[in-house]
Structure formats: C-alpha cells, structure tokens
C-alpha cells in the first residue's frame, strides 16, 4: 500500500473541479465549463521535492461491481478515500448508498484505507444554521446506511467544504496531512520556532497548490488560514511581475490591528507563513536566525524516510 488517494462521488459533485483548481490552477469561474469525468483519471501530485503521491478520481458513473484491473490496482495503493457529496442535490439517498458501496469496494482492496467525506457546495452565502442542518442530516443518513449494512465500525471523517471560500483548501490540506509521515515532527519544530520568536501562528505551505503541510499546535482559526493563503498570492503575483516565479524571497504585511504576516521561502515550493504582533518583531536578525534553524530542522526531517 502506497500513500495514494482515491476520490469517489456522484457526477457533478465537484471532484474534478477541486482537483483542477488545487493542482492545475484552473480558475474557479471556469469550473462551470468542465465536462463530466467518464473514466478513472489519475493526477500525480508533487509537493516540494519530498512529497509525491497520486490521486485517482473515479467517474460518477463508475460501476463498483465491475472493477477492471487498473482500477483494482489503484484502489490497492490507496491509504485514503475521499467521497464528495453535493449538498445542494437533495435528496441524498443515491449519494449515501453509493458511498456505502464505495467504502465496501475500497475496503476490500485496501482494508486500512481511511474514509473522509466532503459535504461539498456548502457555499458562503448559506447561513450557519442551515450549514449545521445539512451536516447533521447527511451524517445521520450515512450513519443509518452504514448501520443497515453492519458497517458501524467504519469511521468516516466529515468536512464541510465549498470552492467559493477557503474551506476546500483547509480540508484538503488536513486530509493530505493524514498521508504525510512528517506532519507531527514538523508541528513540533514549528512550536519551537514560534516560541523562539513570539509568533502566534505558523503554517508551512506548498505554494503552488496552497495546501498547508503542517501547522503548530496552537488553535486553528479559519481567518488566520485565509490571510496566510492569500498572502501566497500576493507574494507569487508580485514576484512574477518583478522577477521569476521560482525566486526565493520574503514578504511582510502589516495590518491595522497591530499584526504582521511574515512570509519566508524555505525551499523549493515550500514557504513558512507566520502571524505575530508587530511589537514583537523588534529584532529582525533574530527572526532570520531562527528561520535558518527551522530550515535545517526541516531538512533533517525530510532526510528521515
């Protein structure tokens, strides 16, 4: 078993859109023009120079009872399964049944595969109580379906996502972290870095996909994540205008509430973005020293396979 990911979900649930937007930089407004996926597609993902895995996207029409050898082989290498449900396509019976069947099929080939469910298209204009209703309803439907089929022991993690805000990035990141062997070690390293510089929150991002590979153990706030992932765009766009895309560099953004965002290239495609209070940034040389320490620590972690 490798560390690959397989994605299932009915047609038009949003699987291809998410993959194209995250990994192929498709503009969000162009996702409406995508054709349905008709056969299994695979995408090779490279995050920085150390992280490689494949995502196998199964068509919404995929007949789970009719698995061909390449599809079987794909499922056998997967340690993680993502099922995407379109929350705007009620009723959910068909989606829920297909989920149950997909889990059964994948677990046959890869018994230790983790199951994650994206409750997708929960767009930003939907009110919070409606979002909670949807989450509860779908969780219950799935739980009932699994019970009916004596699959109570199967753990499914739920994520509420939309392509129109940062939730798709946040949750895709959290799922990817399940297949990375280093997340815990990097978290410890980040905790130590934060402490040395009085930093409130740090994220280690892969900048082309904008997925975060690790974060410190401080509480996760969506707004912090949003600001940091948007900062990547500022850095990349300005760098493209005045230099080349691959240039390493740093950036600082000061905000009116006294916080400062610090972006620092760590190595190929990987950057560290931290949030701190600007009054704590009194000794920039200290920050630079600690970032170098962090780089070295990270290089050590990546060496251990």
């Amino acid at each position, binding site marked *: 078993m490798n560390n690959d990911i397989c994605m299932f979900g009915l047609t038009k649930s949003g699987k291809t859109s998410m993959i194209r937007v995250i990994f192929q930089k498709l503009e*969000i407004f162009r996702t409406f023009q995508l054709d349905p996926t008709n056969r299994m597609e695979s995408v090779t993902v490279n995050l920085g120079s150390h992280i490689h895995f494949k995502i196998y996207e199964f068509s919404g029409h995929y007949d789970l009872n009719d698995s061909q050898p390449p599809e079987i082989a794909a499922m056998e290498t997967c340690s993680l399964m993502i099922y995407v449900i379109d929350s705007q396509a009620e009723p959910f019976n068909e989606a829920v049944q297909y989920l149950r069947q997909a889990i059964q099929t994948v677990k046959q080939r890869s018994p230790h595969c983790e199951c994650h469910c994206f409750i997708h298209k929960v767009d930003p*204009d939907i009110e919070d109580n409606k979002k909670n209703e949807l989450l509860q309803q779908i969780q219950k439907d799935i739980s009932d379906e699994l019970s009916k089929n004596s699959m109570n022991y199967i753990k499914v993690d739920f994520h509420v996502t939309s392509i129109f805000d940062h939730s798709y990035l946040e949750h895709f990141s959290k799922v990817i972290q399940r297949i990375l062997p280093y997340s815990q070690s990097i978290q410890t390293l980040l905790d130590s870095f934060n402490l040395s510089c009085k930093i409130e929150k740090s994220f280690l991002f892969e900048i082309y996909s904008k997925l975060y590979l690790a974060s410190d153990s401080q509480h996760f706030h969506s707004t912090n994540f949003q*600001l940091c992932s948007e900062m990547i765009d*500022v850095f990349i766009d*300005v*760098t493209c205008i*005045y230099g080349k895309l691959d240039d390493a560099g740093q950036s600082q*953004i000061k905000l009116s509430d006294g916080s400062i965002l610090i972006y620092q290239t760590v190595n190929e495609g990987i950057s560290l973005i931290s949030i701190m209070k600007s009054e704590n940034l009194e000794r920039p040389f200290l920050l630079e020293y600690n970032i170098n320490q962090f780089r070295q620590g990270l290089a050590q972690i990546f060496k251990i396979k």
Partner: protein
Amino acid sequence: MSQNENKMKKMLLMGQHKVGKSSMHSIIFANTPPNQVMQIGLTVDVNQNLFKFLDIKLNFLDCGGQDKLLQEYFTTQKSTIFSNVEVLIYMFDVDKEGDLFIKELNDFKTIVTYLSEYSSGAIVFVLIHKFDKIKESERKIVFERKYKEIIQRADGLNIEIKDVFPTSIWDETLFKAWSQIVQKLIPNINVIKESLKAFCQTCSCEEVVLFEKSTFLIIDIQETTEKKDIQKYERLSNIIKQFKLTCMKTQANIQSITVKSEKFTVYIDEFTENTFIMLAYTDPSIYPAAISHNVHHAQKLFESIQGSDTDKLKYLIQRRP
C-alpha cells in the same frame, strides 16, 4: 468660493439589463469580491451611490437596464437623468451579437444623443464587458469589430468618447479601465504627476505608483527606466485589492506590504489620508527602512497637494533640491 468647496460630480452608469453595471460598481467601490456578486439583485429604477475619491465627491447614478426603465429615462425623466452629467459610463455585453447587439447600439446612440443635448461637456467611457467569455485568441478581433460599430454610432454627435475598454471582473482589465476614468476626474492631476516624478528621482527608485486608498485604483505612475508594461500595475491593483478584501473579514486594514527577493524590493505603504504609494527597486542593497524613511518625509508635501492652492504647490516643488 474656496478651493475646497468642490461640487459633486455626477456619473451615469448605463447599459442593458444584466450587463453587470451594479456588480462592477460594487467590486471597484464597495469592496465586494467577484465570487460574491451573484447576490446583487436587479437594479430597479436608479440607485444613487456617493463615493469620495481623494477629495472628489462622486455621485454615481446606477440606472437599471430593463426596457421599460429605459423608456422612462428617454421620456419623463429625460432632463433629470441627463443634465449636469460629468461622465457617462456605458457598458456593452461582449456576448451580445446580431439583433441584440444592434439594440444595444441603438440605445447607446439615443443615450449619447440626449447627453449631448443636456450635458454638452460630458465625456463618455465605453466598457465592453464579460470579456472572460471570449477565447484569448479571438479577443483582439472581437474588440476591434465592436469598437468600430460603437464609434460609428456616436459619429456626428457633439460628444467625446474618451475611450473604449474590454473588461472582465475576473482580471485586471476592470482596474485598468477605472483607473483611466478616475484619473480624468482629478483636477490637479498635473501637479500630482510633477511631484511624484520629483519624488521618484530623489529616491532613485525604478518605479513609483500612487494608488487611491480604498479602491486601489491607480492615480499616477512614474518610472525612471524606459516605459515598460503598464499592465503590471493594474495587476498589482487587483492583487492588493483581493488581499484587502480578505483582511476586511478580520476587521483589519492593510498598512504596508513589502516583498523582497534577490532581484527586487517592492514597498507599498499608506501615504496620505486617501492614498497608498508603491516603490519598486531592483537594487538589492536598499533596505526597506531607508525607503520607508523617504516616504514619510515626502508625505507632508503630498498631504498639502490635495485640495490646496496650486500656485503654492508649484512653488513648493520648485524649491526642492
């Protein structure tokens, strides 16, 4: 009459039903990100929006585009709508062809005709919108074809079409068009240009750009090297504005942005009460702190430019070493 008492400038925003007038206005002025404009309802009748750009008070009349409203504008409300207009911004939908395009052109001609009767000094800007729907390879041809038809319709009328822009809410073209439009409205733009030029030379940086604070539209650009690609500044407006919108969710505003690599340093900071300034250097040895010092030094001079006596300013500029 004191210099500070400037009257409101009336800006007409017109175009067919659902072409995107209100969405566009909302993105540039009221800080709505593009993926939330679906929630903007249909404009019924005329929406008035006041906006202060630098010291200039802009009064936007966003006129609903449904046919029956157009009929009212052309008859009962004719003089109310078309008098005392400073600028007309007319939007075409690039997707409309054949009869629909002809209808747009005819409405446009009627509007421009009435405008020339009631506000003979008004200037007209035309936006051909939703260009994201056209394939890259076809954009030039489509634009040139439509441009010809539009200019021809206004031929012979006593009105000036200042410019025609291809625009889309999904890229920087909207910022480009609006930067040009607002630049025409700034009364002392020449003084600002001269001062910025002097500042750029004194600082020995490659580029200086002055942005309006809340819209991030470009007021002026000065470069010490040969004229390069203007489009990049419009992309900067777009990028910074996007980030600003995310910040607003946390109730915070941008104070300054620095991006530094081996090959360049870009420094963006709050400047006067309603502007931001950007400096770009390719000399990697310059420290952001030095840039910031120069900027704060120049702030006082620029504060005095806005809404003040032009002669006093010219004196101030000439006095600098």
